[in-house]
C-alpha cells in the first residue's frame, strides 16, 4: 500500500477498500483477542496479560519490547524518521475479578465474554497492528510506540499511563487511545472529575432500644439525601452519579457497615472542588447524630481540558469517520486520553466496534464493524504520520 501521501484526501481515497482488505487479518485478531481476554486482568493484576502482549510484540519483531516499573508493556515499530513518534495506547486492565469465568464464546457474527469490549479488543488491536501493517505493506515515517497501560480503571487512577508519561523521554507528536467500544466514539476533551468513596461504620455492640432507628444504612441514607440537595449547575455542565451502594448483612440485623461509590464531573474544575468541599462538610454534619464513623476518600481525579474541535487531529478523525459512514459520537473522556490531553499532547480516543452488555459477564462485540473500526484507526494513524494533524505553526 502507498504510504507517502501529499494530502489527507489521498488517504481518504484508500478508505472504501480498507475494511475489506482488513478482513484478511481476522484469525490473527480474534486469536489475539481470545488469548488476551481469557487472561484475567483486574486493575493492579495485569502482569500476565501484559506478558502475553509483550510476547506477541516480540514475535512480530518490535523494538524495545519491555515492561516498566508500573507494569506497562511497551514495544516500538520503528519508522523511517527516528525523530518522530506517535503513541498508541490501550489499557490492559478490566473491571472483572480474576475469579470470573473469562472464557470467550465466538459466534459467526459476535464474540461474547467479560471485558471483550472494554478493553480486550483494544489490546488485541494493539497486538495485531504490527501484523496489519505488515499485511498491507505499510512502513510509517514516525516511530509507533505501542503501549498496553496498567492501573487505568477505578482506584488505578490511570497510574500506569501517568508513570509512563512522566518517565519516558520520547517526544510524542500525538496519541491515540484505542477502546473496544464503540465505533464512532471520538473523545478529545476531558471533564474535571473525582470519584469518591464514603464508608460508614457503627459500633458492633447492639443497642436493642435503638434497633430500627439507627444503622449504617440510615446514616448513609442521610448522607445521600444531603448530597442530592447540592445544587448542580446546567452550565458549565456538571453531574453527580451515585454509582454503587453496599451495606448490611440480612433482613433483621442492624447494619454496622455501609458504603457509597460516586462520581462528580464538571467542565469547570472550581465546581468540582466546591462540591468536594460540600461533601466534606456533609460528612461532618451527619456523623455526629448517628454516632457513626464516616469517612470520605477521593479514589481518583482528573483535571478538565482538551483540544479544540477545530484541531486538525479532530477534523481528520471526523473526516475519516464520515468517509467510512460512521456517525461520530463526541463525548468527553475520563480515560487514558484525559491524561494525554492534560500533558498537552494532542490525543483522541477511538472505538473499534459495536458492543452491548458492557461490563456484564456477557459483554458482547459485533465482529463485522471491527474492520471499519480498524480502517478508521489506520487512516487516522496515516494522517498523523503524514503530518496532516499538526496545528499550523
Amino acid at each position, binding site marked *: 500500500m502507498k504510504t507517502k501521501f501529499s494530502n489527507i484526501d489521498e488517504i481518504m481515497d484508500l478508505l472504501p477498500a480498507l475494511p475489506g482488505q482488513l478482513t484478511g487479518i481476522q*484469525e*490473527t485478531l480474534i486469536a489475539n483477542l481470545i488469548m488476551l481476554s481469557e487472561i484475567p486482568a483486574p486493575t493492579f493484576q495485569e502482569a500476565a496479560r501484559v506478558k502475553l502482549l509483550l510476547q506477541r510484540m516480540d514475535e512480530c519483531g518490535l523494538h524495545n519490547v519491555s515492561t516498566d516499573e508500573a507494569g506497562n508493556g511497551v514495544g516500538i515499530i520503528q519508522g523511517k524518521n527516528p525523530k518522530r513518534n506517535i503513541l498508541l495506547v490501550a489499557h490492559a486492565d478490566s473491571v472483572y475479578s480474576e475469579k470470573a469465568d473469562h472464557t470467550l*464464546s465466538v459466534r459467526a457474527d459476535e464474540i461474547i465474554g467479560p471485558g471483550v469490549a472494554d478493553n480486550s479488543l483494544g489490546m488485541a488491536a494493539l497486538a495485531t497492528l504490527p501484523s496489519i501493517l505488515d499485511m498491507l505493506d505499510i512502513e510509517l515515517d514516525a516511530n509507533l510506540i505501542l503501549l498496553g497501560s496498567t492501573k487505568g480503571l477505578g482506584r488505578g487512577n490511570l497510574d500506569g499511563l501517568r508513570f509512563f508519561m512522566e518517565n519516558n523521554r520520547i517526544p510524542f507528536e500525538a496519541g491515540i487511545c484505542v477502546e473496544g467500544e464503540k465505533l464512532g466514539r471520538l473523545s478529545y476533551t476531558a471533564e474535571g472529575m473525582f470519584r469518591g468513596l464514603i464508608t460508614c461504620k457503627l459500633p458492633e455492640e447492639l443497642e436493642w432500644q435503638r434497633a430500627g432507628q439507627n444503622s449504617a444504612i440510615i446514616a448513609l441514607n442521610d448522607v445521600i439525601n444531603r448530597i442530592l440537595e447540592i445544587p448542580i449547575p446546567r452550565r458549565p455542565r456538571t453531574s453527580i452519579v451515585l454509582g454503587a451502594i453496599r451495606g448490611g448483612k440480612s433482613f433483621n440485623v442492624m447494619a454496622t457497615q455501609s458504603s457509597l461509590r460516586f462520581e462528580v464531573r464538571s467542565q469547570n474544575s472550581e465546581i468540582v472542588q466546591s462540591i468536594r468541599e460540600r461533601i466534606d462538610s456533609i460528612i461532618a454534619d451527619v456523623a455526629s447524630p448517628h454516632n457513626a464513623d464516616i469517612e470520605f476518600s477521593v479514589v481518583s481525579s482528573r483535571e478538565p481540558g482538551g483540544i479544540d474541535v477545530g484541531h486538525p487531529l479532530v477534523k481528520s478523525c471526523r473526516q475519516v469517520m464520515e468517509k467510512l459512514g460512521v456517525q461520530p459520537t463526541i463525548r468527553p473522556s475520563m480515560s487514558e486520553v484525559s491524561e494525554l490531553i492534560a500533558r498537552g499532547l494532542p490525543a483522541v480516543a477511538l472505538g473499534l466496534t459495536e458492543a452491548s452488555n458492557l461490563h456484564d459477564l456477557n459483554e458482547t462485540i459485533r465482529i463485522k464493524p471491527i474492520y471499519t473500526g480498524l480502517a478508521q484507526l489506520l487512516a487516522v494513524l496515516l494522517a498523523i504520520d503524514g503530518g496532516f494533524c499538526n496545528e499550523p505553526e
Partner: protein
Amino acid sequence: MNLNDWIKNNTIHHSQFWDIKKLVEEKEKQDLKISLCLPTLNEEKTIGKEIVMFKSELMDRYPLLDEIAVIDSGSSDSTCEIAKTFGADVYLSADILPQYGEKKGKGENLWKAVYELTGDIIVYVDADIKNIHPRFAYGLVAPLIYRPEVHYVKAFYDRPLAFSQGIRPSGGGRVTEILTRPLFSLFFPDLTGLIQPLSGEYAVRREVLDKIPFPIGYGVETSHLIDVYEKWGMEAIAQVDLDQRVHRNQETRDLGKMAFGILRTFLYRAEALGVIGKLPELSTMLRQFQASDETFEQVAYEIVEEERQPMIELPEYREKFGIE
C-alpha cells in the same frame, strides 16, 4: 516393559514443547503433513473459537498444521456455517465414502477423516472445549515429531487449582474411574498407565489409524487403545498433560449410556483377542429409570456399537493413497 518406567518416560507435560518454531522446523525436516480433525454435532457455541485459534496460531503464525477439517454428523444448528466462516474445510460425514452408508456416532467421523484428510499425522480434538489453546494440538503432535517410536499420543488434563499436600488424587472422569480403569486393571493392566484413556483429544500416525477398526460410538477410544497396545505395544503410546480442559458436564444418565457402549466394545474386543471366553449374544438395550409421582417406569435405549473395518481394507482408500 515396566509400567512405572513407561509412565516416567511416556508421560509428558505440554510445556516441554513451548518452542513451536523448533517443532515446525523438525516437522519440515521430516517432510510431514499434519491434519487437524474436529468431529462435530451441534457445537456452534465453541467451534468458531477453536478454528480461529488453531488457524491463526498453528497455520498462519507457525505452519504446523496443513489442514483443519470439520467432519460433521449433520448438525441442526449453525456449526457448519460458523466453521466455514472461520476458514475450516467442512465435510458432512454422510458425503464421505457414501457407498459405505451413513452411521451415527463420533467414531464414524473419526474413521471417515482417515479417508478424507491427507496428513501423515491426524490430530483429533473435540469441538466442545471452551478454553481452547494451541497446546491442544501442538502438545499432542510434538511427541510424534520428536520420537519416531511413538505412534499414538493421548491427552490428559491435570491442573489442581489448590492443593496443600505433596500428593493429590489424579485420574480420569467418572466413567474412567468406575468402568474403564477397573476393566483395564483386570484384563490389560499395562493400559492402566494411561491417566485419562477416554479423553477425546489424540494425535496418531496414519499408518496406525488405517490399520485399526473404528467402533462408531462411545467405544472408539477404548478400542483404539487396546488395538494399538496389542499391535505396537506400550512403547508406541504416549500421554501429554494439557493442563485444564473446560467443557460441558454430562449428566450421570448420559454417562450410563456411554459406559454401556464402552462395555460392549470392551467385551467384544477382549473376546476377539482371547482374553476372555466366548460371550453370549449381548443386548443392545440399556434400561434406565424415570419416575412420575409414585410411579416408576423403565426407559430403554438402544445403543448399537457397530464397527468400521480398518481403512486399509477399503480399495477406495488404497487407491487414493497409492497403497499397493
